[in-house]
């Protein structure tokens, strides 16, 4: 289960997620909408177990502990929680104490650090600086073993030295890291800054930085398990693995999406959101299954594919695989994109899939 908390103290310049400035009264409205949505989903999923809970944003730690408690309580009261993982995304410098989160049952924290270069942080509109980030890591690490952080590649003023420094500084605190190559959304503030001369990495430079970063991470035994995610053994994000393995999930809050069986629900991009739904055809589901599972280092599970879609993947796609087979590894139960070609996933999917 995912809960989108749409509040931020300030919007970052590269961000195109749905968020609004934090306000106490708006939070109450938001909680009311969540309560309504919880009742809707309760009917849909009946007593199915919820294994992972993830509060993302936005900035989940921009709301008060009292409001956070309300949201959690409501979920707890209405669903059959059997949580193996309970993650909260936080941004350095905002609220929610580690004690509070620990007490409520959170067992994984994901910190939006992005960079430890103050000039870079400032240029992309982050509210925190490098010291805030390190302090935040130190503070939460006292309570949580399972810490993750984000590192963003390609932002202004970033050097390879910055990346090495970043990894050297955070490695002792974290078990997991998400490495995102900068994508500049069309209507973002960053886009207009770039148009007026701000430099960000080119596509080629991004590829360089990405390869550089994954090598740096190897020094600390971080292993890639998805295109943008690295972890120490057994610290992969269970919640996110669930998306890539195409399991069912429900998402609450504005813009959140859910998949239950062959139905996709999507909340509108709006504070007073509505729910839209779409029935997925067999072919659509098959495409989604392939495009998601090939993001993983382990690749696509051939047996599960056969179970869900009733066909042998290697037979069904043999013609399409033939000209691109050098980019894949196949072993008894998986087909995967070779790690050095994961950053070409789109090119390979376009060869493989028919829409």
């Amino acid at each position, binding site marked *: 289960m995912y809960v989108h908390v749409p509040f931020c103290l300030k919007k970052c310049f590269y961000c195109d997620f749905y968020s609004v400035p934090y306000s106490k009264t708006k939070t109450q409205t938001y909680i009311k909408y969540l309560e309504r949505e919880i009742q809707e989903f309760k009917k849909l999923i009946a007593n199915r177990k919820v294994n992972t809970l993830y509060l993302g944003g936005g900035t989940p730690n921009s709301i008060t502990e009292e409001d956070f408690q309300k949201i959690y309580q409501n979920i707890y009261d209405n669903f059959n929680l059997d949580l193996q993982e309970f993650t909260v995304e936080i941004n350095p410098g905002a609220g929610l104490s580690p004690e509070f989160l620990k007490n409520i049952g959170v067992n994984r924290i994901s910190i939006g650090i992005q960079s430890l270069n103050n000039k870079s942080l400032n240029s992309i509109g982050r509210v925190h600086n490098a010291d805030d980030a390190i302090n935040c890591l130190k503070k939460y690490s006292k309570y949580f073993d399972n810490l993750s952080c984000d590192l963003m590649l390609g932002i202004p003023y970033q050097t390879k030295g910055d990346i090495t420094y970043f990894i050297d500084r955070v490695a002792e605190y974290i078990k997991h890291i998400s490495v*995102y190559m900068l*994508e500049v959304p069309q209507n973002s503030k960053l886009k207009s800054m770039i148009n007026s001369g701000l430099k960000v990495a080119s596509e080629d430079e991004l590829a360089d930085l990405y390869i550089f970063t994954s090598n740096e991470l190897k020094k600390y035994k971080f292993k890639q398990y998805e295109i*943008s995610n690295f972890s120490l053994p057994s610290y992969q994000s269970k919640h996110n693995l669930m998306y890539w393995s195409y399991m069912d999930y429900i998402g609450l809050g504005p813009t959140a999406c859910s998949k239950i069986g062959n139905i996709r629900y999507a909340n509108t991009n709006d504070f007073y959101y509505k729910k839209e739904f779409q029935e997925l055809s067999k072919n659509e589901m098959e495409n989604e299954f392939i495009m998601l599972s090939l993001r993983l280092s382990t690749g696509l599970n051939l047996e599960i594919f056969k179970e869900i879609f009733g066909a042998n993947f290697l037979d069904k796609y043999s013609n399409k695989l033939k000209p691109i087979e050098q980019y894949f590894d196949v072993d008894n139960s998986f087909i995967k994109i070779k790690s050095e*070609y994961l950053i*070409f996933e789109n090119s390979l999917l376009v060869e493989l899939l028919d829409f």
Partner: protein
Amino acid sequence: MNKQELTRNFCIIAHIDHGKSTLADRIIEATGAVSKREFKNQILDSMDLERERGITIKLTPVTMKYKRDDKVYTFNLIDTPGHVDFTYEVSRSLAACEGAILIVDASQGIEAQTLTNVYLALENDLTIIPTINKIDLASAQPDLVKQEIEDIIGLDASDAPLISAKEGIGIIPLLDKIIDVIPHPTGDCTKPLKALIFDSMYDNFKGAICNVRIVEGSVKKGDLIKMFSNGKEFECTEVGIFTPSMLAVESLNAGDVGYLAASIKNVKDTSVGDTITTVTNPAKEPLVGYKKASPMVFAGIYPADGSRYNDLREAMEKLNLNDAALIFEPESSGALGFGFRVGFLGLLHMEIIVERLEREFDLDLVTTAPSVVYKVIKTDGIEVSVDNPTHFPNPTEIEKILEPVVEANIYTPPEYVGPIMELCQDKRGEYLNMTYIDTSRVKIDYKIPLSEIIYDFFDILKSRSKGYASLDYEIIGYEPNALVKLDFLLNGEVCDALSLIVHKDFAYTRGRSVAEKLKDAIPRQMFEIPIQASIGSKVIARETVKALRKDVLAKCYGGDISRKKKLLEKQKEGKKRMRQVGSVQIPSEAFMSILKYDGR
């Protein structure tokens, strides 16, 4: 007065934007042939494309009644296309007339194209009424233009009507002049039928329809008719006139202009310039001047999306019903898949056909570089005609290559003579002659290989003369030249659709320029792509498309799936427009972009 004495058959000759269609509109309005309600501008130009481009491609004749004093005259106006590609069609429509209105723009004077058609009209013994149009313009200089007409063409222009077709000025006096000056048709109605086909078109219900001028004899429904060129016989199902919509009449008689339908299935049986006679009482000789339209320029046309080959075939067949000059046969290319080799009268004809296919049939096309027809003498003495560089014999089997050459007549204001002569020299031109027509106009004659004309000659000519120069050309024969086949290799494999025939002295420059353009047009792929230009096995230019470094969406969680799928779908759409050469994918647009004149 008999009917012939009350009939006038005429056409309008004009440079492309000197106002021909507008004058036709005014004449139709003045005679009331079309009601105000049905009227639209350029009424005789039946295709949207013609209206948009302001040019006439298909000829639509119209029969009108004009009353003067107590007599009712029949006017047959035959509109003519105004471009060098269609000279032959123009000459046949001129042959259907006794007179021509020559429109000259009061501010622009005579243009090269006007002259070509005037000479054609004079060859056909037409009476010409020089008419000065656009006299409402502030820049109009009717006296200068009159002088020009007398100096250049040698026609008496002293009492040339001064009109403004746009403003409707001087139209009635012009109509009177038509009656007074243009001779009425003659021809014996009792003699065997001789009908000149000056155009044909296809009608879904009536079959191929011939637009005819009856020169001698008469024809009516039920007559058994015969085509002189191929001897095919048909039963006439309908004769009629254009008002401008088709109106059936009892019979068409010597001097008349109208149409004839005979359930003819193939428009190719109704060749422009052919003579129709009757089976029962045939004429002994056909009318003179029949010439089969022969295509000069060939190009491959392929659907951008390979799966639409059948749609393209159907579209070609439909267009062909109405355009007998269009010649095509299926061809296949390693790079482009299945398509057609198409012959055109010239580049404009090619451009029009491609545009009509795309517009009227909603197709997206890839066109290969236009080629002329080469004559290759092989070492064993056998001569072959080659219209597709791909089919060139192996260099070791070639004794000699001949290419078509044209005499190009370029008309230009004197200040551009230098750059134009330089252009002609650059294009392997051989200087023939230069005449100062008057102080503002020079005629430059060059002998130039046709292949150079069809490449980018016209675009450069226009750009070097700020649009003032104009060009006519006529094929004058074949000449041997040092030509070579230039191939392009992508990742080591020849892309057949890109092969070109060039003069060996130009091979290096051309090879480099195309390789550079390909480098820009081919998107980066997962591996590096060498682009090579080669003559035989010798590589003369090389470029490289660097390997793509990444193609991935960084974030993909629960809420991103639909967005990611949309991105992939879009990418897949783009891929459908790609052609595969070996392992390399080339966007359809790349084939076009290398043909385009880039201003260099």
